[in-house]
């Protein structure tokens, strides 16, 4: 298999896009990525589009066909990837595989989503479609509900009093909002740079013990990357970022995980696969974008990937271990909480944010210094249903 590089990135602002379609948002991100790579549309050999719910967001199924046309690409193979919130991470991973295999030299991969037009009740209903339709949906489970269940279980399994855990969770929100406030592409740019723990704890209860500020927002947006075979990467950029290893894992109904809901095997499996393929370990990673859909999700993810021991990640975040200067700078873009979460666009956005870090082009205050050599993306779709990891590096590895 050949090595594959990211040679171009593109990213719309995340937030509320009233007068732009999901296709238009994708085109904006994709054109930026092509321009960034200095590549022409006619060089693109295949298109990989992650989008979770365009059928509900805009009544648009098969969105990849409309994206292809709107970009003026040739009649190239175009495919939509659906893995709920991990849709475009899976799209990027598969795109990488096709280039690595030698089938294509240059491809475009990304994601797009409009969630806000659905409104909260329909968005809550359609997100729940990523749960088990015969067991979990009829019981009334929602996505915040998933991580509310996980938080209470985590508290009990690790013997951390719930009030103590809620403070640790609030620190996740404070940190990610601080980063998001500095990121011009973020939904909450300029908003919550100085959010306080007490404000998170006392905001409106959505789903005990999660308050509104423990949750990522509903968002519209798109992100895209140009992937290229290693031997041709230098034609397009002086700063290629290589995909050194990838992993993907799959879950099922939540009940099957039992106590392991606090350390999901699907995430452990996927992360280990990525580390093994990259020949790296958690201690080698210098910047991490992970799936903080809700604050306890960040704590669970940090432990499942092996960055902190079980039951210790919340405390570590509180101590600044997930900040610049700490063990693993995490969600320097703001993550889903601060940057926003247009479902199908999130994975590609995470890749863009890691590449930005590796080019030393992250916003002031968010750039890890020295510029990181190795970075990682973690995305979760459903209730640990689809896990996908990408390890990126400035050197070929």
């Amino acid at each position, binding site marked *: 298999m050949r090595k594959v590089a990211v040679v171009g990135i593109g990213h719309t602002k995340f937030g509320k896009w009233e007068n732009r379609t999901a296709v238009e948002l994708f085109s904006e991100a994709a054109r930026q990525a092509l321009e960034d790579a200095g590549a022409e549309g006619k060089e693109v050999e295949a298109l990989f589009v992650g989008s979770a719910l365009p059928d509900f967001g805009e009544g648009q199924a098969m969105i990849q066909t409309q994206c292809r046309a709107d970009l003026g690409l040739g009649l190239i193979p175009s495919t939509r990837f659906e893995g709920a919130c991990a849709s475009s991470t899976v799209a990027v991973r598969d795109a990488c595989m096709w280039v690595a295999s030698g089938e294509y030299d240059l491809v475009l991969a990304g994601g797009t989503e409009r969630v806000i037009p659905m409104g*909260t*009740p*329909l968005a*809550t*209903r359609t997100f*729940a*479609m990523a749960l*088990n*339709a*015969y*067991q*979990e*949906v*009829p*019981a*009334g*489970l*929602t996505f*915040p*509900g998933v991580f*509310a*269940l*996980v938080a*209470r*279980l985590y*508290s*009990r399994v690790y013997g951390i*009093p*719930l009030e103590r855990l809620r403070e640790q969770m609030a620190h996740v929100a404070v940190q990610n909002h601080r980063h998001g406030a500095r990121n011009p592409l973020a939904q909450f740019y300029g908003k919550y740079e100085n959010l306080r723990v007490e404000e998170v704890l006392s905001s409106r*209860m*959505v*789903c*005990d*013990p*999660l308050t509104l500020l423990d949750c990522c927002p509903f968002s519209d947006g798109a992100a895209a990357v140009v992937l290229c075979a290693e031997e041709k990467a230098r034609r397009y950029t002086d700063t290629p970022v290589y995909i050194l290893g990838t992993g993907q894992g799959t879950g099922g*109904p*939540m*009940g*099957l*995980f*039992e106590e392991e*809901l606090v350390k999901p095997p699907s995430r452990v499996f996927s992360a280990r696969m990525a580390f093994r393929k990259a020949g790296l370990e958690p201690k080698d990673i210098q910047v991490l974008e992970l799936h903080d859909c809700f604050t306890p999700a960040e704590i669970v993810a940090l432990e499942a990937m092996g960055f902190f021991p079980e039951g210790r990640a919340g405390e570590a975040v509180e101590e600044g271990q997930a900040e610049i200067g700490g063990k693993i700078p995490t969600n320097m873009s703001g993550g889903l909480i601060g940057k926003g979460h247009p479902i199908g666009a999130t994975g590609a956005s995470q890749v863009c944010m890691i590449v930005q870090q590796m080019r030393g082009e992250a916003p002031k205050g968010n750039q890890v210094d020295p510029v990181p050599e190795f970075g990682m993306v973690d995305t979760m779709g459903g209730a640990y249903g689809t896990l996908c990891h990408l390890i990126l590096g400035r050197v070929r590895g």
Partner: protein
Amino acid sequence: MAEYEEALKRGKMLGLRCRECGAVTCPPMAVCRKCGSRDLEGMEMSGRGELMTFTVIRVPPEGMQGPYAVGLVRTEEGPWVMGRLELPEGAGQEVLGRKVRLAGSLVWSDKYSAGERVAPVFRLET
């Protein structure tokens, strides 16, 4: 699944016992949740278990009315089952670990649900 749902409507919870490893799977799947065997036989669950975690949903999906409590119950036979809960007002972390019992079921449908769906309802043992 249809048989499981019909039984739930009558207040009974059905499971599948593995003839190879003895583990119980509930709700039903085509394979044993522990060993993957397809050699399974039907059985009736006791309906008793322990509350492992719960939440109160205050922002419900379209078509449901909140607030309501949802949780995971570890059944006496082993499998963890998702269900609706009848909990006292203001219940907190102290109810985790409490014994619960199947108290009935909730029938629900909407335009996406492919007909009527059923969820078990659990109540704390007194």
